[in-house]
């Protein structure tokens, strides 16, 4: 259906692309049944470690393993450096943008972005206005979704600035790969990723309220029935911090405390993995039992730091997304290193007209959607599906954006029939505190169904280990 798909391993002329040369030779030394055996072994390891996520379906939920593919995604040092610089640049600009919109809104005064786009955004939190955060950082942990379409073309598909997940897979996938293929790691220098949690803890400690020299950091989880609970446990364990639920925390005298067996203990930094809406039933959703009543006022007075900060969702919205290249120019005076996917804003009449005429070629997404739900993938949809989606768009065009169907790169993947190309994307994690850093690794997601472009784990996607070569 899409011509000229770029493959990460096999170049168009039949040669092996350079980053894969060593691994490909190694791979050829395995008979097919040996590979299947390795895959079963990997499954067992994941099951044993209990690395599961919850899937929801009508009438319940179940613990599942995310399918893991034993063939790695490999990036050269050069490719990585560009991604790294591009992601750091992007997250810096987004943090400056967030600081700006919750303070003086220079970006609107300068006419770069219309103010109503911010005010109308459902993720905008007037309660966050005027708070001065350490280092002006709002998104301490950001996941930037990147796709590739050719040797030199990388596009940012989406910024995840709220509570991005997946980093535990980056770490556990590596752990499993090193157990399965120790020789592969001996044959070439692959950048290690296991200092991620150390960097994360350092980032979190660096944003503690002033005067808290030995801050107490906790991870706030919605609880064991959350789909990413395993990751919360994993990160808390790796950092040696308490994994708390809303009921474990309370507010008293402008400070946040946790209930411990020795009485209340003050908390300084909360790495929260629950959404803004659920954080404080007094300020946001009153029916939330996951949050901590009164925490917003403590945040406003600087008595506790939240990572990520309240209100950051404005910057990862798909409506804001289209402005990011301009934001980079505005705040940093630099040209964007990583491009956006060309995007049609259907709130604009000409874009809407074009999109409606080309629905069968486009991917249409809801501005506020996430997780791969509620999108239209034109080329693989039936006439009826397209017609139905057209009605939805016409009802309120401003709720949608459209993008050309990208020929996402493929990566060799072990499937039932043997090794076959499958589409992949990439989510590196950017940490921002005193400094902005990236670990040389990422969460690679792979669409396991042949031809599928949907990589979300809730939609049948799998994961791969991501190798960055040290050169």
């Amino acid at each position, binding site marked *: 259906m899409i011509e000229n798909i770029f493959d990460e391993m096999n170049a168009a002329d039949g040669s092996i692309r350079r980053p894969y040369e060593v691994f490909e030779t190694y791979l050829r030394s395995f008979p097919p049944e040996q590979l299947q055996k390795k895959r079963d072994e990997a499954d067992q390891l994941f099951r044993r*470690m209990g690395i599961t996520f919850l899937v929801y379906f009508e009438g319940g939920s179940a613990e599942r393993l995310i399918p893991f593919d034993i063939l790695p995604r490999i990036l050269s040092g050069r490719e990585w450096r560009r991604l790294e610089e591009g992601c750091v640049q992007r997250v810096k600009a987004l943090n400056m943008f967030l600081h700006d919109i919750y303070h003086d809104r220079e970006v609107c005064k300068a006419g770069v972005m219309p103010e109503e786009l911010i005010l109308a955004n459902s993720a905008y939190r007037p309660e966050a206005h005027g708070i001065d955060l350490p280092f002006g950082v709002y998104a301490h942990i950001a996941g930037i979704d990147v796709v590739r379409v050719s040797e030199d073309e990388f596009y940012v598909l989406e910024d995840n600035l709220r509570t991005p997940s997946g980093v535990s897979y980056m770490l556990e996938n590596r752990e499993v790969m090193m157990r399965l293929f120790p020789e592969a790691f001996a044959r070439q220098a692959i950048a290690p990723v296991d200092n991620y949690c150390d960097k994360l803890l350092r980032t979190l400690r660096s944003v503690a309220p002033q005067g808290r020299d030995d801050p107490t950091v906790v991870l706030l989880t919605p609880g064991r029935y959350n789909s990413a609970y395993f990751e919360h446990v994993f990160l808390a364990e790796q950092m040696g911090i308490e994994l708390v639920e809303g*009921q474990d925390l309370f507010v008293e005298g402008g400070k946040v405390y946790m*209930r411990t*067996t020795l009485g209340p203990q003050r908390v300084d930094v909360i790495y929260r993995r629950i959404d803004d809406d659920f954080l404080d039933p007094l300020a946001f959703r009153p029916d939330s039992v996951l949050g901590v009543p009164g925490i917003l006022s403590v945040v406003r007075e600087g008595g506790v730091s939240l990572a990520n900060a309240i209100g950051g969702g404005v910057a990862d919205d798909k409506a804001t997304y289209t402005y990011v290249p301009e934001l980079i120019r505005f705040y940093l005076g630099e040209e964007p290193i990583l491009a956006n996917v060309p995007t049609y804003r259907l709130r604009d009449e000409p874009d809407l007209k074009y999109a409606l005429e080309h629905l069968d070629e486009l991917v249409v997404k809801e501005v506020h959607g996430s997780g791969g739900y509620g999108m239209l993938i034109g080329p693989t949809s039936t006439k009826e599906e397209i017609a139905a989606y057209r009605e939805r768009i016409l009802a309120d065009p401003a709720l949608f954006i459209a993008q050309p169907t990208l020929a996402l790169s493929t990566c060799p993947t072990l499937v039932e029939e043997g090794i076959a190309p499958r589409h992949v994307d990439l989510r590196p994690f950017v940490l921002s505190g005193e400094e902005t850093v990236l670990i040389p690794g990422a969460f690679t997601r792979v669409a396991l169904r042949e031809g599928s472009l949907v990589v979300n784990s809730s939609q049948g996607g799998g994961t791969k280990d991501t190798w960055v070569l040290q050169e």
Partner: protein
Amino acid sequence: MLSRSAEDLYWMARYMERAENTARVLDVSNRTAVLPSEEGSQSLHWRPALEIGPDPAAFYEHYDEPDAASIIGYMALDRENPSSIWSCIRAARENARAERARISTEMWESLNDTWLEIQVLDPEALERWGYRKFFDWIKERSHLFRGVTLGTMLQDDGFQFARLGGFLERADNTARILDVKYHMLLPSTAEVGGAVDYYQWSALLRSVSAFAAYRKVYRDTITPARVAELLILNEDLPRSLHACHNMVCVTLDELIGGRRLEGRRLAGEIHASLKYGRIDEIVTKGLHEFLEEFIFANNRLGHQVQQDFMMSEVVVVD
């Protein structure tokens, strides 16, 4: 540490211990039931296995007659029965899952393996395994988990809470086993006479791994009073009430850090009765009454521990 974590670890250990003890009770019933007995009734041997649980009446809502297949089905694998071995393992694993950041990887893997295996067991598969093999397997998994805990877990407060839960549960279970079996066996005579009697008493001892210990301690024939003495007062027998409460006091002392807590006072009271108690007085006053009182006090201590450590009051001392 977090109060909720303390509670999770405490219950994780309690449920694992309970699963083991249920297996022990079923094992001893299964052994004694195969013997010829005067009444010739299966239910006589199996009823105690039910009565040791918190809600024996619930069984009769699902089954008519307490016999081997129905009782083992109910107590071992019934998913609806909250105190079945299956449910206990599940609850232990759920608590461990909530505290994966606190327990060691090996502990989690051990418990998760147990769960993955029992999760898919059904009565037919159980019969293919053989009951004995299943009970032994549960005991082994419990021993393994305890050993892994001892050998790999950071010995901080969380460890002490897990230990505390385990010992309180074990004391409760030993008291219940003794209470139920003693009642059933005693009416015959004060002396253990015939071969069947002997087998019954030795099975009771075996159910708490105390048969060889009895021989070593008394070097004499089995009498009911000595069995009671061994299981209640002997502090060297790991499953005796006294031994359990020695450990309860030790772990509590580690946890209270110089505070004066009601739980510690209660524990001291129970401990004193076991340390200075005499078996002839206990038997004269009524063993059943003594055990009933013990189970009540042990329970109360459990509640008090939760009060003391797990319901942090909103009093701020910065």
